[in-house]
């Protein structure tokens, strides 16, 4: 059975997470193999998630860190 492209885009997330049942997994795989447009959709999804993993960590504002350290010193001096 061939699923629609819309259905593919809905199931693709769970497919990436390994959360699909055997039948749904087979349908996603079949659709991916025959639909070049959904392969483009999937390629963009993979690149997006990869780019998210590559984003650098953002440091906290200096003011926040200063307030935390002040509280820590106040606690220590009791």
């Amino acid at each position: 059975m061939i699923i629609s492209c819309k259905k593919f885009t809905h199931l693709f997330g769970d497919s990436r997470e390994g959360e699909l049942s055997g039948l749904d997994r087979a349908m996603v795989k079949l659709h991916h193999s025959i639909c070049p447009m959904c392969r483009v959709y999937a390629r963009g999804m993979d690149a997006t998630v990869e780019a998210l993993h590559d984003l650098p960590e953002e440091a906290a504002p200096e003011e926040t860190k200063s307030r935390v350290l002040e509280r820590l010193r106040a606690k220590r001096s009791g």
Partner: protein
Amino acid sequence: MPDLEDDLDALRAGDEAAFTRLVDALHRPLVRLAEAFVGRGPTAEEIVQEAWLAVVDGIDKFEGRSTLKTWIGGIVVNRAKTRRAKDARELPFGTAADAEEAIDPARFRGGFWKDPPRWSPSPDDLVERRLVREAIVAAIEELPDGQRAVITLRDIEEWSSEEVCNVLGISETNQRVLLHRARSRLRMMLERKLAEGARP
């Protein structure tokens, strides 16, 4: 990212360097977490600031029954929920936009692509990878608050789905739906932004 639990003894001993590392590692994701409940603006930042002071005061009592980030995340969420209740916002978490379809339904006809997806950047081209990274930072800001919190915690901060569900108090299924909608919506926004950037 370093394992925060390795610093636990130093944190309990009041080590300043360990606290600085902790705040640097968790402040931004915690603000995103608070924003999922109270929206963007100074309130979310205030909630996290107050939560940090509670962490300093209460670290001695932290028994390690959860991870540090889920404990601190829980403090932020409790405070954010209280604030949200005061402001009488209707949904318990996120906004109505979190429930919308990630892909514009007009791009399909009868369930099949009418306006097919595009994706030009090559995964091997370093310049194009940089362009995607730059576009993604702007696109994340356009996501609905709930989706933005989930994708930040899962994909940028690499928290486990269990940690995200525990902190946000949502089911595994709900978390997966929000994560997929966020990724899909971002992917479609990037498609548009990258096409605009490539236009002469």
